[in-house]
């Protein structure tokens, strides 16, 4: 957090990233000539060559992250948050339900008069722990380093579509919140990169981010 300003787009963060911009812009990747339809004189705004995101400023265009790699990263992140809360969650549930009446199998009865306080505390602790972990992992870390832990493993990162730089903690947390809202409200959010021209989910669109392969 208090590191020197080794931001995205600066050498030292990633030795392989040749970020100092070349003096000339990358040539516009028109479709190769001879494919029948000549390219229009000028592309409409918003158009970009398939397979690559042109990022704003002087950042070079980057290849999109594949949909499955994003799914994999999300599953890994979910697995990790599960691991983080596993111990307090399981112990808390055991403590809470050990005195329950299971004889009526239709529903679970808890003797609330004799609730195991430690069990409740552990469950609340598990909730807070999990929340903090997700906010840090999918919000702050994704914003400042471009990657949640899952994305680091998979090798993809989140950058601003207009800047090519990491989006920062604030936008990262907002992206995480919207991810959870959109994802829970409508699964279509996660399918959206499959048909979107910039491979964006809805939470990507709001914070103007794209997910690209880490070079």
């Amino acid at each position, binding site marked *: 957090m208090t590191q020197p300003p080794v931001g995205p787009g600066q050498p030292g963060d990633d030795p392989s990233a040749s970020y100092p911009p070349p003096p000339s812009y990358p040539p516009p990747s028109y479709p190769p000539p001879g494919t029948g339809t000549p390219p229009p004189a000028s592309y409409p705004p918003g158009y970009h060559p398939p397979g690559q995101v042109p990022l704003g400023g002087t950042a070079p265009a980057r290849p999109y992250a594949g949909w499955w790699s994003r799914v994999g990263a999300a599953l890994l992140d979910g697995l990790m948050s599960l691991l983080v809360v596993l111990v307090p969650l399981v112990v808390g549930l055991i403590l809470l339900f050990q005195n329950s009446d299971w004889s009526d199998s239709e529903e679970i009865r808890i003797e609330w008069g004799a609730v195991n306080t430690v069990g409740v505390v552990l469950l609340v602790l598990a909730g807070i722990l999990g929340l903090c972990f997700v906010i840090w992992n999918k919000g702050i870390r994704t914003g400042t380093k471009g990657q949640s832990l899952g994305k680091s493993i998979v090798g993809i990162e989140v950058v601003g579509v207009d800047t090519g730089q990491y989006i920062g903690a604030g*936008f990262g947390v*907002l992206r995480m919140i*919207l991810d959870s*809202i959109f994802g829970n409200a409508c*699964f*279509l959010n996660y399918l959206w990169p499959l*048909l979107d021209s910039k491979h964006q989910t809805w939470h990507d669109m709001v914070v103007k981010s794209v997910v690209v392969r880490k070079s």
Partner: protein
Amino acid sequence: MTGTAESLAFATRFRAPALVALGGAAAFTALRVRDPHIEGSWGLCPFLWLTGRPCPGCGGLRAVNDLTHGDVAAAVSSNVLVVVLVAVLAVAWIVWVVRTARGVDAPMIRIGARTSWVLVGVVVVFGVVRNLPFGAWLAP
């Protein structure tokens, strides 16, 4: 442009609106067929189960079910936010389709970061107010 290329572009342009409509219709149908007024029919909300209090989303599924029956009053009393959301989405979708037909390539809804923070704030405030005495009429 040739006719086939045009119709191909037409199909591509309307793919997203069609998918959204399909998703919405599926959700409405599911909530109509399997009535969320029956407790546990769509599972239990862990927040309600643990605290006994309604969260901002509480009554949302019931509100949609009420809407499929045309009972707006019941829907509003279940969850105003969801009713407003459905209305906004419906209008936005229609505008989107009209604009797409006119050849405008734009997303259905465009909201910026600041707006979404505000909306998140509205949801949180709604969740708090409906748990307070003077906001009890907002609870489901």
